[in-house]
């Protein structure tokens, strides 16, 4: 069934021999409890062993089962033909059970969910055991080992023995060999001890020859139910089935010796009663445990869904907050623009007067010192005027004037324009412009101003000289990325978020409008600016602009 297991033939043979031995010994042990007929017992663990072995190792281990069953019977009756027939019946029972479980009940995972446990009970426990009981008892009857009159009661004993073997032993083996994934909180040592004590107490009370109730055979079998409910609620299924196994061993011993609630004058009937009751407890406990586990799993899923929803809500809230901040920011800028436009006119008139009168006075005056002072007045009017110019640039945000623009050409123009200034400041410009950049939609003048402002800022950041890298490349995302990277003083972390705000400056003679204007212009082009900066290493302004769609 699974080639992995056949990779090592020596190991596999050893396993087959091992299964044979376990099967044989458990069968001989079971037949020790055969009271109705030497070959039919109410306690038949080999059924469970066969099903578990087929499920765990694959159908190819069937010789172990066939041989095991044959030797159990040949050493019991000494009859070859019936032994062969019974062996065939036992083997096909295991094969059929495992095959049905593999096909309809998720194979080894059959004990993972409540519905699959019930399927296992029906397919492997009730259905496939009919085969062995029918073949076995019929062949015994045909060769006179069973009287036809007794056929029904032997058949029932056989069938119940096999079914209980399947219910009890198959899950015991499978659950211990296959790791269970559970959604339980690990029970404390105290709880585990308490459960063991409860089981011991009930078993003692019901089955011990020293207990009054056991001796008197009071029908107190129901006392086993509470501890099993407890176990199935709080422990892994492997512990549930182990407890059931241990209790059934104690109960069988006790019943055989005439103690406990199942003991009657007919030992076989007693065992059938006991086994039926134990089967019921096993099935209910396993299903209970599976349901509890499923509930816990669902609860966990819900919790996870809830917390992932919380994360999502948090993220969305952050996004909203950010969008809101951006909106406020852009509204701030817009109102600043309107405000600037309003005051610019009012300031420029007096400024014109100051400047113009100073020019007039200077023309009329012949005193050098006064002339110099008048020059200062004129120069300062010009400085004030430049601030107003920058401010006014905020006011004019017309997107209509975007035209298809050759970015490469624009960048060349900007770089050429600052060459002299860079040379003077001992700054090396390294241009790295990807050939064949797609055009962008731009207001060339404004973008030129923005790039110029960014470069000016870079130059100012490198008073002792340095390197200015101008990079432009087209990204597969459809954006064109222009980077201005300087090797200058860098921006302290706390200032990075502020450098794009108007009037923020760290330069003694800065207006704080250059970068704000660049930001504004990039915004106008539906682009983004990112800033990466390390103090004393340099700053990169990364401008991402949408390319023209073809």
């Amino acid at each position, binding site marked *: 069934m699974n080639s992995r297991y056949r990779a090592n033939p020596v190991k596999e043979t050893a396993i087959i021999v091992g299964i044979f031995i376990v099967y044989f010994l458990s069968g001989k042990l079971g037949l020790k409890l055969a009271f109705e007929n030497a070959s039919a017992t109410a306690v038949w663990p080999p059924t469970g062993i066969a099903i578990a072995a087929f499920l765990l190792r694959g159908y190819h281990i069937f010789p172990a089962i066939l041989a095991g069953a044959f030797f159990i019977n040949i050493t019991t009756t000494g009859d070859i033909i019936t032994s062969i027939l019974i062996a065939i019946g036992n083997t096909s029972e295991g094969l059929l059970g495992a095959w049905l479980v593999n096909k309809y009940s998720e194979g080894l995972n059959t004990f993972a969910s409540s519905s699959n446990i019930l399927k296992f009970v029906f397919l492997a426990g009730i259905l496939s055991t009919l085969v062995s009981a029918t073949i076995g008892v019929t062949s015994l009857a045909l060769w006179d080992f069973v009287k036809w009159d007794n056929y029904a009661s032997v058949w029932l004993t056989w069938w119940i023995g096999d079914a209980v073997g399947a219910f009890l032993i198959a899950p015991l083996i499978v659950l211990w060999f296959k790791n269970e994934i559970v959604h339980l909180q690990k029970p404390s040592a105290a709880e585990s001890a308490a459960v063991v004590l409860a089981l011991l107490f009930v078993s003692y009370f019901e089955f011990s020859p020293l207990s009054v109730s056991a001796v008197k055979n009071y029908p107190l079998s129901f006392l086993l139910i509470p501890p099993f409910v407890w176990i199935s609620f709080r422990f892994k299924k492997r512990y549930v089935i182990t407890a059931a196994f241990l209790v059934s061993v104690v109960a069988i011993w006790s019943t055989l010796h005439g103690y406990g609630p199942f003991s009657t004058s007919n030992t076989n009937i007693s065992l059938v009663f006991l086994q039926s009751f134990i089967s019921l407890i096993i099935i209910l406990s396993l299903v209970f445990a599976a349901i509890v586990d499923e509930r816990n799993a669902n609860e966990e899923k819900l919790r996870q869904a809830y917390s992932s929803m919380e994360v999502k809500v948090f993220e969305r809230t952050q996004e909203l907050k950010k969008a809101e901040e951006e909106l406020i920011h852009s509204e701030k800028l817009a109102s600043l623009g309107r405000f600037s*436009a309003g005051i610019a*006119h009012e300031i420029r008139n*007096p400024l*014109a*007067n100051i400047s113009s009168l100073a*020019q*007039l006075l200077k023309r009329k005056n012949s005193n050098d010192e006064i002339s110099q002072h008048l020059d200062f007045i004129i120069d300062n009017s*010009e400085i004030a005027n430049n601030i107003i110019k920058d401010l*006014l640039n905020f006011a004019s945000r017309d997107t209509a004037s975007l035209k298809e623009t050759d970015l490469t050409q624009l960048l060349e123009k900007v770089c050429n324009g600052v060459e002299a200034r860079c040379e003077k400041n001992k700054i090396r410009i390294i241009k790295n412009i990807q050939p064949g950049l797609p055009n962008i939609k731009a207001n060339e003048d404004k973008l030129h101003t923005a790039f110029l402002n960014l470069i000016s800022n870079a130059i100012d950041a490198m008073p002792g000289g340095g390197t200015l890298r101008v990079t432009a490349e087209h990204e597969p995302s459809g954006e064109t990325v222009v980077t201005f990277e300087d090797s200058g003083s860098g921006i302290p972390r706390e200032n990075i978020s502020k450098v794009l705000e108007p009037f923020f400056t760290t330069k003694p003679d800065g207006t704080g409008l250059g970068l704000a204007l660049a930001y504004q212009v990039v915004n106008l082009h539906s682009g983004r600016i990112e800033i990466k900066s390390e103090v004393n290493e340099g700053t990169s302004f990364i401008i991402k602009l949408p390319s023209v769609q073809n």
Partner: protein
Amino acid sequence: MNPILIIDDNKYISFTLTEVIQDYGFKSITAKTCEEALKYIESGGNPPLIILDKKLPDGDGINLLRLLKQKQEYKGIPVIMLTAYADELSSLEAIKIGAHAFFCKPFNNEEIMKTIEKVLDKEKIDKEKSS
């Protein structure tokens, strides 16, 4: 020569321009509004040149410019426009309509005066030619 007409509602600008123009040896007269200016022109003021502010209390200087340029009898008068807005579009518009020059406040006296002198010289020559 008739005085140059300065149209600006800002009394300081009018004063300063008057002073500057005087210093360069020309005469000038001022108007505060479009209406006042138009009245002066229509009453036969016949200025050799108009200095026109873009923003006036009773309208846009550009509209007055357009009006003058549409009238046969005034369209020959050269107009220099002034503005406190550094607005490329409106300067282009003004030149298109027929303004002779466009200056932003604050301005350089010398530049304005050079322009004025050039215009008036040409006017003089034209007039001499025609007479």
